[in-house]
């Protein structure tokens, strides 16, 4: 099983009363809360953390795209990937991913991933999310009724641009391009592995199964709650008559590992509560615009993870308002987060056991680990990262590797043909 060090890059200094005094961390978050000096420090610390994870031996580092929010400071994951590309020469980079429908034309994604694949010598994974409603509909003004159609057309355009060996015309419903000719071409042929992060849409399961794409359930709510979603995906894979190769699945999980369980409880409480009660403080009205879900998903009654997070955050806000003067109800407690599996916590043995259970129960071969979350300070991030890499990963990395081939992992150029680190200066 591959472990990817995934970073959300949250803004770490939202005020303690943010959930009480502000409606949402996304879309209409108060611009005055952003301190550019904090931003400067944060970006560089976060890049350090990603590079440290690469040095520790993670199979890959992962980044993603969000807009107008304090939850994640990466409007452009490709910029972060570019910053990492030459400083992490021995790891892979998972961009999970570029919200295809937000690019006009989406060919820009094909070009930038091809550039990154060229710089890294073929160490890229290309992720194509539809994008959250907050990012796509509200922050970027896409029409919810046409977003998914636009997204699928964009992915089709990118795949054609990477695979066709002639200049061609693309006459789409939303994209009209007389001449499609991506230069540079990706190093990986026919193209970098494509992973699809999903939030629970039943039609995405079907599409990934049919098209042999990796389905990644990027849940906030742990493997216990995510099992049903992954089972839904594997059922679709089985219906296509294909093998349920665990490397076609991915999952995201918060990790809190320390020398002892008691130490873990002490160390990770504050950053976990910051993440779940502040970074996920999303107004419910931003989570489910009409048209964002497919009719099949509505019919199946599936609630997306963002929708769930927003619903719970809004319920907490309303509860707070109703009890003003009588003491605020607390947000989600750390004990609840651990009990429900949102956070896997413990000493290395305990964490390895739970990760093993997660991977085998959900049948997933790619684990996006959140070893940084919330407002975790840089020293604790390094500790968590190193503990996972040195004491947990060795216990789980052999999972599935003998039994299945990872068909969706980067295939870089062999050394010494590869050239992706700074050349030594010549004096």
């Amino acid at each position: 099983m591959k472990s990817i060090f995934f970073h959300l890059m949250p803004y770490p200094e939202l005020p303690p009363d943010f959930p009480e005094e502000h409606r949402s961390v996304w879309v209409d978050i108060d611009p005055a809360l952003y301190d550019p000096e904090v931003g400067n420090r944060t970006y560089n610390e976060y890049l350090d953390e990603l590079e440290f994870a690469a040095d520790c031996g993670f199979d890959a580092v992962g980044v993603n795209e969000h807009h107008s929010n304090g939850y994640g400071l990466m409007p452009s994951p490709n910029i972060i990937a570019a910053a990492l590309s030459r400083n992490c020469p021995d790891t892979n980079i998972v961009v999970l991913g570029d919200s295809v429908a937000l690019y006009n034309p989406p060919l820009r994604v094909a070009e930038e991933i091809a550039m990154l694949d060229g710089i890294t010598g073929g160490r890229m994974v290309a992720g194509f999310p539809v994008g959250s409603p907050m990012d796509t509909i509200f922050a970027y003004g896409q029409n919810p009724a046409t977003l998914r159609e636009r997204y699928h057309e964009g992915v089709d355009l990118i795949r054609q641009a990477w695979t066709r060996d002639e200049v061609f015309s693309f006459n789409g419903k939303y994209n009209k391009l007389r001449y499609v000719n991506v230069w540079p071409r990706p190093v990986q042929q026919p193209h970098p592995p494509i992973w699809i992060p999903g939030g629970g849409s039943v039609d995405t399961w079907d599409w990934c199964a049919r098209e042999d794409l990796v389905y990644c359930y990027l849940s906030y709510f742990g493997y216990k709650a995510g099992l049903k979603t992954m089972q839904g995906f594997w059922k679709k894979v089985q219906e296509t008559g294909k093998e349920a190769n665990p490397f076609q699945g991915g999952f995201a999980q918060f990790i809190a590992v320390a020398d002892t369980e008691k130490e873990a409880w002490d160390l990770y409480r504050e950053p976990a509560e910051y993440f779940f009660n502040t970074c996920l403080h999303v107004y419910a009205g931003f989570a489910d615009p009409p048209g964002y879900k497919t009719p099949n998903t509505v019919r199946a009654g599936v609630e997306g993870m963002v929708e769930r997070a927003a619903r719970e955050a809004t319920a907490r806000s309303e509860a707070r308002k109703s009890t003003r003067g009588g003491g605020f109800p607390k947000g989600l407690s750390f004990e609840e987060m651990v009990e429900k599996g949102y956070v896997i916590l413990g000493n290395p043995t305990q964490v390895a056991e739970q990760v093993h259970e997660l991977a085998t129960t959900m049948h997933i071969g790619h684990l996006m680990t959140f070893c940084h979350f919330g407002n975790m300070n840089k020293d604790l991030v390094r500790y968590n990262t190193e503990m996972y890499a040195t004491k947990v990963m060795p216990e789980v990395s052999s999972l599935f590797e003998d039994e299945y081939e990872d068909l969706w992992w980067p295939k870089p150029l062999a050394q010494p043909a590869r050239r992706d680190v700074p050349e030594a200066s010549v004096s």
Partner: protein
Amino acid sequence: MSGYATETLAFREGHLGLVSCGEGARVTYLHGMLGNPGEHAFLKALANDGWRVVAPSLPGFTGSSEPSGLRNLHDWVVAASELIDLAGVTGLPVVASSVGAMIALELAAIRPEAFGAMVLIAPFGLWDPEDPVADPFATTLTNQRRMLTADPTASASFFDDAEEMPADLLVEHGVDRYLTRTASAQLIWPIPEFGISDRLHLVKNPVTLVHGAKDEIIPASYLGKWAQLLPNVIGAHLIEEAGHHAEFDRPEDVAAIAKSALS
């Protein structure tokens, strides 16, 4: 309700829903964001005033299939033109509301014979940055209901499930409601202004404007803006105690205005 009937007509690759009721001179009702949610008080009020009401559903709204192939406003207007011909209501007087009023105006601008006299209830289409149209989608379903009518019970036929409805139909009712909201979003997201003010001089039809004083989506100030821009306004009515869908909040009052304006 007198002779309330539903019909389904083949329309392009899908179908078109049509409801009708009453006896008398024919009038078209072109719905708004609530679609045509079964028998409701405004249709009844029009019927009681002696009209034969014919109410086609726009693509994607209650009773009509999803609006595939509709990329932009031009596509919607062409579809509406085809739809009124199919429904046999071309040239009739029309009461049009909300998103339906926006489409009716766009169609009237390029096809003068599409409608006779027009009663327009809170049309979308204008945008005043000093007094902007509210976003009806960045909110919970409960709040959206409050935004659509001053009295939330007035939209019960759209939002509430019938108690005796079987479970499978409840699910489909929920899906239909979702698709109707989706169709509205497709028409007016993110800012419902598509340059109509440059085309309004082409609308020669006599127009009567109606606006709910408690419209929480389109400010009541827009009543005056429409009256200034349309060349042939014969009446403008601000309805007290009415929200965006004034015809749901105050069905008899709006029906009386329609009777006076269209007779």
